């Protein structure tokens, strides 16, 4: 499979993880650019993944690999690494493309290590100028303040890549007809060293940010817990719910249920007003769906300005009180 691409998809419940098709689109594009074929793999208990494999058979793929085993009924790193190492040895792709999910973070670096490789992780773009030169993979450094371009320099080995949420469009996946093949890995229960429990949620959510029309969200730029009252006043004036980036909730300044981002809530308000938030990808995935984003940040290069409709480069300690006053004035007037 010279220049072949193998995309490893992720399931969630009985369906797909929302990022699976983004990875599939990235894989199809990479294969087309490199002049190779694209295949896809889905892992799990055979009966559970059969309908998913059938769905993949309607996509433009060389082969759909159905990797079924009772020991893959629940995700474990040991199970996934063993099964995928065997599949890769059989399929011999040049590129393995994965969605950069929490599950992929958990196993892909070790899978690459087992094959003497390094995962080029959380990639935002894949550029192929000339196929013979190979692809360039773009990753973010410094929480999005720099772009670093990577090439796979390995001696002909497999190149592992995971793609960042939202960087490729899941609806760009090309349809077609492909053949489903089953692959039965050799797995041993004794070699699965971790015992995973069921997923649970900590406490009943008392605030539902997902339906809030207006959100004022505060980040580490606020400096101290004491200063939160500034944004609370702004939220009150706007009739908004208050939300926060992770560090604010980590510090216990606001409850965890007000956290927006990949490990918190996903919101889609009419207005998202980000105050002192830098705009790390894990935050952005939770609020990209907002209709209008206004960002107040003292750093003109903060990545939040890339998703903002209106940006204010300034000190929040000046802008926020002035804005609160102006809104209160407008409400009276």
């Amino acid at each position, binding site marked *: 499979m010279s220049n072949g691409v193998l995309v490893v998809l992720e399931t969630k419940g009985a369906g797909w993880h929302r990022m699976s098709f983004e990875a599939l689109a990235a894989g199809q594009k990479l294969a087309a650019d490199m002049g190779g074929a694209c295949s896809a793999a889905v892992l799990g208990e055979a009966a559970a993944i059969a309908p998913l494999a059938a769905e993949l058979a309607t996509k433009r793929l060389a082969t759909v690999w159905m990797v079924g085993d009772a020991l893959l009924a629940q995700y474990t790193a040991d199970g996934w690494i063993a099964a995928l190492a065997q599949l890769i040895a059989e399929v011999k792709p040049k590129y393995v493309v994965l969605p950069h999910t929490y599950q992929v973070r958990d196993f892909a670096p070790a899978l690459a290590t087992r094959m003497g490789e390094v995962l080029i992780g959380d990639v935002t773009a894949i550029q192929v100028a000339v196929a013979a030169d190979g692809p360039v993979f773009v990753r973010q450094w410094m929480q999005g303040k720099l772009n670093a371009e*990577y090439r796979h*320099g390995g001696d002909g080995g497999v190149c592992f890549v995971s793609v960042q949420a939202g960087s490729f469009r899941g609806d760009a996946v090309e349809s077609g007809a492909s053949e489903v093949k089953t692959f039965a890995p050799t797995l041993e229960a004794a070699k699965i060293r971790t015992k995973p429990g069921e*997923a649970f949620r900590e406490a009943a959510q008392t605030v539902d940010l997902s339906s809030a029309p207006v959100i004022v969200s505060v980040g580490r730029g606020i400096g101290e817990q004491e200063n939160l009252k500034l944004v609370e006043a702004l939220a009150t004036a706007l009739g908004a719910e208050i939300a926060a980036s992770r560090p604010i909730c980590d510090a216990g300044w606001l409850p965890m249920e007000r956290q927006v981002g990949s490990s918190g809530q996903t919101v889609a308000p009419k207005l998202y007003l980000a105050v002192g938030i830098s705009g790390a990808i894990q935050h952005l995935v939770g609020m990209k769906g907002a209709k209008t984003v206004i960002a107040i940040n003292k750093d003109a290069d903060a990545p939040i300005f890339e998703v903002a409709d209106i940006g204010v480069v300034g000190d929040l300690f000046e802008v926020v009180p002035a804005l609160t006053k102006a*809104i209160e004035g407008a409400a009276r007037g």
Partner: protein
Amino acid sequence: MKIVVAVKQVPERDAVVRVAADGRGLDERDVTWTMNEPDAYALEEALQLKERAGEAEVVVLCAGPERVQSTLREALAKGADRAVHVVTPESGAGSLGERDSLDVARLLAEAVKAEAADLVLTGLQSDDLGAGQTGVVMAELLGVPHATLVLQVELLGNGIKVKRELEDGWMQQVEMPLPALLTVQSGGNRLRYATLMGIKRARQKEMREVSAAAAAKRVDEVVKVSPPTRVKRTEMLTGSADEIAATLVERLRFEVKVL
């Protein structure tokens, strides 16, 4: 019980970010350095485990040039028992920038092997490279089970039970035998500050330097580093705070229609 915590020194969050002259790295000249945030949580979890277990040794480990000793000292001041510094050159061959994640993980794994640790903790991701791999790679190199995105660790009779984060606010418990490696997510505990007494004591604690093995050939290569180009045209408002506020109110009323 021996716990090794890998802590990385990274640029402060509001450090000036400039591309190095060769266009392939970060210009480190005016950078001030700090402990990678998730690593501070990993250290906190280790210190609390020690307090709960009654007896344990907490060893902090860092690979990097001379400057990283300030971060190791900070960890000692917070309560770690001793430090191991894997010394790499400031720049050029063998420096951190010239090594890929696999190679850095190898350096750290070698040091861990020499310690025969029961538990290895790392942060889940570094703020500068954002690779999120070093811990998981180390687990594979050490041949021990691992879990990522860990918030809490509980010692069982014959192993550990950890609480780890899944996406969208979901959690999961995972059990595994020791020795094991965990990559720690921020927010599981409140971080402690170093006390004056701690800072004084840290001066007496052992800081062992070991020299780093020569760098292996990189698997991946960084060919270019540059500031990102903006994809979306953000409208930037300028003026005094009051002028900005007045403009925003107009927009909120007539365009966004929330007033």
